């Protein structure tokens, strides 16, 4: 074979490899093509159906007694706010008369003290908000009424006023006691080492704040005492004694509304929740692919509250229907965060919950509604129930039936 004859053959394998390389580049398939229907659409088109379900008549109701004010994550304080005129009460853990330093209990001399609160929510457009702190006698306790609490807010019991800066939407505020003011917070023998603080509020107009409570985990009230321990070593003389609440709550001038047989109520303290049950059609349970589900709740009256502070109505599915004690499905929720005042229909997207109702092992077709933050909102929405056909809840569902693939 001559050199000339060898040359073409030399190119055979490289050419083949090049071809394979080119083809390999096409391995990532791309077939997407824009088309018009029905001219180039096989199998017809997806048809979306719409239906509206209402709860089973008489099966929707509200239950109360879930979360009490003293177990909630917030302490409400307001000044004649129409939605809720509230005062706060905090009872700290006992402060002992000695402090442990170098493994020995030492007496101490108080240098200064602080009472800290964390503002969780306030009307951002209301300036001049000032918290008023009162040192309460031991006669005020967890059984006290609003009137008994406010009766103890005397000038003699006045501790301090704490300004809530106009720019502060949320964050810490502190009352500092030192020098001449230190005597105001001094604990007398009758206090048994326990500081009880009453909370009121003043502002140019009716407003309120929500302070974090001890149940919030972090940011709850704290009582800090800075002391000099009676110990020779000056390096360890300065000590801080910190006490968190043993009990905190708020009381309102007028109790929150209670559930009635003809309305669905959520919120308040102790909090109320609403349960509603639906009859779930077979086509939705077994066949349909649900693409949107919206629960619509109609308020029977405008929802009041603290302006520019949001609350949220939460819808949650249930694991089994045990009435008021039905266990909630943890992570699957729908919610609507609303501003006050409002009388608009409240729409809550509940698709993830409704999808759990499908199939032979589906969850009960029911919702629990509750208000977040539970038992620490100035708002108490009241919605119509099936007793009021005009204002009864509606569940709007859009769904698709199985697509007809058999058609070319």
């Amino acid at each position, binding site marked *: 074979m001559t050199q000339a004859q060898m040359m*073409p*053959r030399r*190119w*055979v*394998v490289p*050419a*083949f490899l090049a*071809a*394979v390389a*080119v*083809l390999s580049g*096409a*391995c*990532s*398939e*791309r*077939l*997407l*093509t*824009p*088309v*018009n*229907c*029905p*001219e*180039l*659409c*096989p*199998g*017809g*088109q*997806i048809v*979306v159906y*719409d239906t509206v379900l209402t709860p089973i008549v008489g099966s929707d109701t509200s239950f109360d007694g879930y979360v009490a004010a003293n177990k909630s994550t917030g302490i409400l304080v307001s000044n004649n706010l129409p939605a809720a005129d509230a005062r706060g009460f905090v009872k700290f853990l006992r402060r002992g008369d000695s402090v442990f330093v170098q493994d020995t209990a030492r007496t101490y001399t108080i240098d200064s003290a602080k009472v800290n609160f964390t503002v969780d929510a306030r009307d951002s457009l209301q300036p001049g908000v000032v918290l008023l702190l009162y040192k309460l006698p031991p006669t005020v306790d967890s059984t006290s009424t609003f009137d008994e609490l406010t009766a103890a807010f005397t000038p003699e019991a006045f501790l301090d006023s704490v300004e809530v800066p106009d720019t502060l939407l949320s964050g810490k505020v502190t009352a500092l006691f030192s020098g001449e003011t230190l005597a105001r917070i001094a604990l007398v023998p009758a206090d048994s080492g326990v500081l009880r603080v009453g909370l009121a509020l003043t502002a140019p107009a009716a407003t309120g704040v929500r302070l974090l409570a001890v149940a919030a985990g972090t940011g709850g009230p704290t009582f800090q005492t800075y002391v000099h321990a009676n110990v020779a070593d000056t390096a360890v003389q300065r000590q801080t004694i910190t006490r968190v609440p043993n009990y905190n709550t708020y009381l309102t001038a007028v109790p929150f509304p209670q559930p009635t047989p003809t309305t669905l109520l959520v919120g308040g303290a102790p909090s109320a929740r609403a349960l509603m049950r639906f009859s779930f059609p077979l086509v939705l349970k077994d*066949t349909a*692919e*649900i*693409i*949107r589900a*919206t629960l619509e709740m109609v308020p029977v009256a405008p929802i009041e509250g603290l302006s520019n502070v949001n609350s949220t109505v939460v819808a949650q599915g249930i694991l089994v229907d045990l009435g008021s004690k039905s266990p909630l499905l943890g992570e699957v929720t729908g919610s609507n965060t609303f501003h006050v005042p409002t009388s608009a229909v409240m729409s809550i*997207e509940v*698709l993830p919950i409704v999808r759990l109702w499908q199939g032979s092992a589906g969850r009960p077709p029911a919702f629990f509604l509750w208000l977040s933050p539970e038992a620490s909102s100035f708002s108490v929405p009241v919605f119509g129930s099936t007793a009021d056909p005009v204002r009864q809840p509606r569940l*709007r569902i*859009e769904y*698709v*039936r*199985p*697509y*007809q*693939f*058999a*058609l*070319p």
Partner: protein
Amino acid sequence: MSARRLAWLALGLLLALPAAAAAQSSIFGVRGPGFPGRPYSAAAIGTGGSIGLFDPQSQLSPASLATLRTGTATFTLLADYRSVETPAGSASTRSYRFPNTYITAPIRHGMYAFGVGATTYLDRDFTLAVRDSIVLRDSLRAYTDTTRSRGGLSDLQLAFAIRTIPKMTVALAAHLITGTNRLVARRAFDDTSYSAVLQSAQTSTTGFGLAIGATRAVSNTLTLSALVRKDFTARVNIDSALYGGATTIGADYGLPWTFAAGAILSVTPFLQVATQGVYRTWSAANQSMVNLGAPGAKNSLDLSLGAELTSRARRATQFPLRVGARYGTLPFLIGDGPTYQPSEFALSIGTGARFAKQHGAVEMSLERVWRSASGSDISEKAWLLYTGLNIRP
């Protein structure tokens, strides 16, 4: 390697192949059971398919085994680059397929030959996107529908040729037509309050066919070939539930008769010219297609003309130049209301070479295809690059 061992190798390779060795996709395969495949080797494609009835690596006719000299395994790779125009817009697509795999061998000292292979019968690979809107809750909601199909029908062939008659070969073939089609429909709303619709299904189809073909050397320079093939009813099953007014799951549709004839002429020792015509009675599927909601089906005709030019008559397999042209009508109609039968025209060029002491061969062909449906605004152009690998033990 003996014929028996080659047969076992062939069977093993066929089992290892994916069931749907689909060929090129097309927008014109959307409104029917698929886009018809072309059972040709890369070499035959280079001549526009005109030597398909004579090429032992093509599966159009079992009689093409007439010229088979030694056991051969053929694999064809196809890269398909298309640009599609529809009233909704344009798109560039690409796909990668194995449209033709064929194992052939002469047996009994060449008195007979057999072939077993897989090729594409109908290809149904597409992804379609539609932008539209509907009124939901008193508002217009825009959405994008995507319909995706993957799969189609493969044609598994067992061919047997009798070469004992002087200057003539008679061959028979049995065809098993089978395949699955995975379908996914998705609708995504612009308004994310609506969850995307996602539904899927899988269809499976089976059919059976028989073919008889013959090749006769009329003279030293002219050879003729003919084929008659009958494919019987395709039975479709779908895994999804009954829906709407449907009373049965799946459907049946008729498969066509195929009539083909061709001639190859050695004009000089360096030049061969071939022509071929293939007619398929796809109208057998028309009523079923219409009943299923498709525009329908018509008979298709495929005409091709090509030539192969070699530089040396004794080494005709080394870098021949193949050119060809073809015109064809496509069986499945498109349109809604007025319907249109698509057609295609293609020009092709190709070459090839053997290596490894004639044990291996590479064939390459490039085809430019124009497809359209007169009267509609739908058209597409494609570059089809075929690469064939032949192995002779």
